């Protein structure tokens, strides 16, 4: 099928399946799944600037439903989300400006492609490491999976960041944070925003670990707060990339058809088949994404 906005021929079934995979993975990894959607779109032959903008548009639609559900369960720290929004928005705009500069210099495919490869390998390695350590703890110390995950977590990091006393200091009672520098929040949000604007999607793969390990937000609140931030960051990224001519809305709508169903199935499946073994098995997917980007950069793939 020809998509006239981005000028590419891609099978709508392929896009629907990519959306479906992203939807299911979102349930398992607890983030949007743009880190796998981007490489799969790029491997299908889409220009990189359209990959970034379209990924943001598609993630916006998917995350709105999920964020609304988490909000209904009370799993969102609205005060924290509001402060983070300042840094997130500035970061998204910075990322989008970098994309424009790379587009103008005709080096966007290579630079963003290499960043995708690095991010994908880091995510895959981290998920594999965390799952492997959790599995070992569960077996060796007869812990439950939840206890083992807490034991594997980097609890001390959040305490160190909360000890930074650069005013103004603010409290987030809903997240159990008695005092933290506003600058820590703004810088953390800004960095995740840059990744959202630069690579597309909501950058939950950066924000979620930041919320948990840097700010010290409890996991269930971090997931809901991250999803709300994803709505705003990917929504703003859709707008700013739309203004810059980087969004193919037809492709985003086709992908969301698969993602909508995948998200429902992913959310259900995690209740029955979740756990470190599944995460360990899935950790190979970002690596496949990295491989696909490398193959496209080498000119070995580029059309579906």
């Amino acid at each position, binding site marked *: 099928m020809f998509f*006239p*906005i981005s000028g590419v021929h891609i099978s709508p079934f392929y896009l629907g399946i990519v959306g479906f995979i992203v939807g299911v993975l979102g349930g398992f990894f607890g983030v949007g799944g743009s880190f796998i959607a981007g490489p799969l779109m790029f491997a299908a032959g889409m220009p990189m600037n359209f990959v970034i903008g379209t990924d943001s*548009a598609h993630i*916006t639609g998917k995350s709105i439903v999920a964020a609304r559900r988490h909000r209904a369960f009370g799993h969102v720290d609205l005060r924290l989300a509001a402060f983070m929004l300042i840094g997130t928005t500035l970061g998204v705009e910075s990322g989008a400006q970098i994309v424009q500069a790379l587009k103008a210099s005709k080096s966007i495919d290579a630079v963003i492609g290499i960043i995708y490869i690095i991010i994908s390998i880091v995510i895959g390695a981290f998920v594999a490491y965390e799952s492997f350590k959790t599995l070992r703890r569960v077996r060796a110390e007869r812990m439950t999976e939840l206890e083992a995950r807490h034991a594997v977590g980097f609890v001390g990091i959040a305490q160190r960041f909360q000890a930074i006393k650069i005013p103004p200091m603010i409290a987030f009672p809903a997240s159990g944070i008695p005092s933290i520098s506003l600058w820590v929040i703004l810088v953390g949000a800004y960095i995740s925003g840059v990744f959202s604007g630069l690579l597309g999607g909501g950058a939950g793969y950066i924000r979620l670990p930041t919320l948990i390990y840097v700010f010290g937000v409890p996991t269930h609140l971090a997931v809901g707060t991250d999803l709300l931030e994803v709505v705003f960051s990917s*929504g703003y990224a859709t707008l700013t990339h739309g203004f810059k001519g980087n969004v193919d*809305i037809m492709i985003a*709508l086709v992908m969301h058809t698969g993602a*909508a*169903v995948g998200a429902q199935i992913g959310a*259900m499946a995690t209740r029955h088949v979740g756990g470190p073994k599944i995460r360990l098995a899935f950790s190979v997917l970002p690596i496949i994404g990295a491989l696909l980007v490398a193959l496209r950069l080498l000119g070995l793939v580029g059309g579906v």
Partner: protein
Amino acid sequence: MHISDEVRRTLIRLALEIVIYLTLVVIYLFLILNFFTAPLVNLFKTNLGASAFLGLGLMIFQGLFLESVTSYLLDRLNL
């Protein structure tokens, strides 16, 4: 394997939710692809700002409104 009534009810609701939501999303997609492709392409070429806002609106509509319609229909079916 024995499945309790509560689990059975939840699974039926979930399956129906997926079927109804998928049907609505597919209808919405076909309407857009059949009737709005040319205007959307034209808008993209002539007014990027309006195209950006419309694109975001279409995604929000697909994500939020269709999900609300699905929930409404499920409530009407008393599930």
